């Protein structure tokens, strides 16, 4: 949490926010999307940027991803969803670096240089959590506004945030990590230790995981069974209609949203993994 605020004191970090945001928004324009199911849904190439930037630039990637998504909306999709888009994308850039090294048996205990399969497994794991967290926040938000059903958006966004980064992300990060480290631009090289929160962050990690997956499972269950089943199987099997449907989904997911919010405060990124890195700038 602390580093999300203290980073604004460092010019290099502020510049990294702007660069992450600019690249995230810019890549949407020249790069064509890859159709996943032609005509229905596609893979946004840009989605590889948040997790990779997160593990390189830490808190700058969280802010950069959020701002970049907002700028992307300024090309013509700005609307009621943009507020939740901002928050969801913030988590997309926040969770990978905040959870790296905190996932127990899934963690490699090494820096995210993508040099062995354990690091790749951990990468896929943190990307999955961030993808789901981002998706449930946006899907819940649009459900609150009554604009799109949770199940539709929640799943599309999860897939989009997960597939491309999980497959190509490890290679991309592997090609970049060592080079960025050599240039002295890893966030842990730019920010002094006293500007970064300390502790184990077990509660924060737990909240982030429970918040995202809990909301995802419950949200899908309510959204699909509470809305979609009845038109196939008839009315009324869930009793009082007021409890099913939208209102219940919004309230049922509220605790998970709160958990994600608290995770923002209680997660503690590992700074010791790349500690051997020399703090320096290449000529």
């Amino acid at each position, binding site marked *: 949490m602390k580093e999300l605020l203290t980073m604004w004191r460092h010019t290099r970090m502020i510049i990294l926010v702007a660069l992450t945001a600019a690249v995230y928004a810019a890549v949407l324009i020249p790069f064509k999307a890859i159709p996943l199911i032609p005509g229905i849904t596609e893979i946004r190439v840009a989605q590889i940027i948040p997790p990779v930037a997160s593990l390189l630039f830490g808190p700058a990637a969280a802010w950069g991803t959020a701002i970049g998504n907002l700028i992307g909306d300024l090309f013509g999709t700005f609307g009621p969803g943009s507020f939740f888009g901002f928050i969801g994308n913030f988590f997309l850039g926040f969770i990978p670096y905040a959870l790296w090294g905190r996932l127990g048996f899934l963690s490699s205990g090494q820096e995210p240089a993508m040099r062995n399969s354990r690091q790749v497994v951990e990468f896929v794991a943190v990307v999955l959590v961030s993808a789901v967290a981002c998706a449930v926040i946006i899907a819940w938000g649009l459900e609150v506004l009554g604009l799109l059903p949770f199940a539709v958006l929640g799943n599309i966004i999860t897939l989009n945030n997960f597939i491309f980064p999980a497959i190509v992300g490890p290679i991309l990060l*592997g090609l970049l990590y*060592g*080079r960025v480290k*050599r240039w002295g631009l890893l966030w842990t090289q730019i920010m002094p230790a006293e500007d970064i929160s300390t502790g184990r962050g077990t509660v924060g990690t737990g909240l982030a995981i429970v918040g995202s997956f809990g909301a995802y499972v419950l949200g899908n269950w309510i959204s699909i069974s509470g809305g979609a089943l009845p038109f196939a199987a008839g009315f009324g099997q869930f009793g009082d209609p007021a409890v099913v449907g939208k209102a219940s989904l919004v309230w049922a997911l509220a605790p998970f949203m709160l958990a994600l919010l608290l995770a923002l405060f209680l997660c503690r990124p590992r700074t010791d993994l790349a500690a051997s890195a020399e*703090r*320096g*700038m*290449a000529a």
Partner: protein
Amino acid sequence: MERADLTEAAQLASVDGNWAIKADGVSFTYSGAGRKALDGLNLAIRAGEFTVIAGASGAGKSTFCYCCNGLIPHFVRGQLDGDVRVFGRSTGSSKINQLAQDVGLVFQDFEAQLFSTNVELEVAFGPENFALPREEIRRRVRESLATVGLTGLERREPATLSGGQKQRLAIASVLAMEPRVIVMDEPTTDLDPVGKEGVFRVARQLRERAEFTMVVAEHETEEAIGADRVVVLDGGRIVADGSPRAVLARADWLEELGVQPLGAAQVLARLGEPVALTVEEAAARLADRGYRIDPASAARQDAAEAARAAGYGEVVLEARDLAYTYPNGVAALSGANLSVRRGEFVAVVGQNGSGKTTLVKHFNGLLAPTAGEVTVLGRPTTGQSVLQLGRSVGYVFQNPDHQIFAETVFDEVAFGPRNHGVPPGEVKERVAEALAAVGLAGRDREDPFAMTKGERQRVAVASVLATRPHVIVLDEPTTGLDYREQRRMMDLVRRLNEAGHTVIIVTHTMWVVAEYAHRTVVVKDGAIWLDGPTRAVMAREEELLAASLKPPQVVRLGNRLGRAFLSVAEAVRLLERPEAAGDAAPDDAAPGRAAGRGGRG
């Protein structure tokens, strides 16, 4: 508040003499680097002086610039020894953002120093940071934009400006802070001739205003003629320090250091004549001393060039009535005709926006003609993909960083052949061959990102060579390189041509064209303006000037004498002096050269 700072600084300055910048025993080593970027530098610059700092890449020019405003030691990490004072105030004990009011710094990369979404706000940005009153900022914005000639563009987005305009905007944004010292770190390296001229014009104008101390790091020496003082750096040390006449006269010595010499000075020096820095001066001196072009040598040269032209093979590229209009409606080409034969070495020159890059992008299918036809090896490009055309026409882009991605040089160079489905065994063979051709043999395991700009550029060339194209197109192969790297790159291109490749370079660096290209095509306003043997095109100075192109000194010197010289060596070979025997020793009239030796630091 600012006034108070100034008077305080002025008092300090009076204690420490009238030095704007004073470096005492300054050494700096970038963290992680093995050698010192500055090595015991002693340099004092007087207030109001206009100093040009020359030197090759890595000589320490940028490092010195960063020392002047406190980026070293406050921002750039490394080991600093010695002391830098700005008007008596030590940079080590002042903050960068406070020094910013005294020292304004303009960087080489114009893209990476602009922050705002319109021109006016960009200029206002510095003064805003110093919390100046809005009325005062308004005045400064108006005056700064007027000084750099951008008045009227206040509301434009910086992204829509040309490179030269962006760099002038960067200068304006520094001027608006009203610093007493302006430091420019290679401000014209990435610009085309018009952009360069615009920046130099502003620099000359600022120089006339007594309140500014100017320090300009440059590797183009022609503009240093007007300076008060030229300092040459090599390996972080001062190796020459004196008047432009004294320093620039030592042309061959400068060239050895990797600084581009003045053609006129070099010709005279090699002939053993007294120094001259400008074309007019040199031409007058040569005429005076009775030099003329040896007709027999000239005839031999013409014959050799005619024989070379006769030896070209069949037509490999042809554009007929080629027109191209961009999707946004901008007509970039209108009716261009060009045909290139096997074995030619063609330079396509012209201003940015003239259409030269648009023209060559048709040869590998990146663009398809709006009207007219382009053929490659006799087949129209329409209907052929970039992938297919890429087997015949290799295209090296201007900035190697726009293509380098792989973990090793080997994988980078192997990328093209693999895409073309070349079997692994042959890929290996081709990579080795391509790396040998660019002088990087044995470095295939290295990380291309860790190489110098010049080496990265050669990796990019190798990656195209490995696909074994008939024709190689190079877009601005020398931009952003220093003189020594430019030569190395062009020597490489010449070897490729001699080995049988047809070569097309797109450039606006005229000395490169003169010295290397056999044929020159000038593109102006989307049409072919001049097309012919390089010597013939170079002789038409006025028409070149109309296309905003200026031949290098040695060419202009030759034109004054009746024949375009394409290089210094050629000039020296062709010039003869029938009555040479009876003349006085040239050294009597060469005070400049003597001073040059005296000024050696």
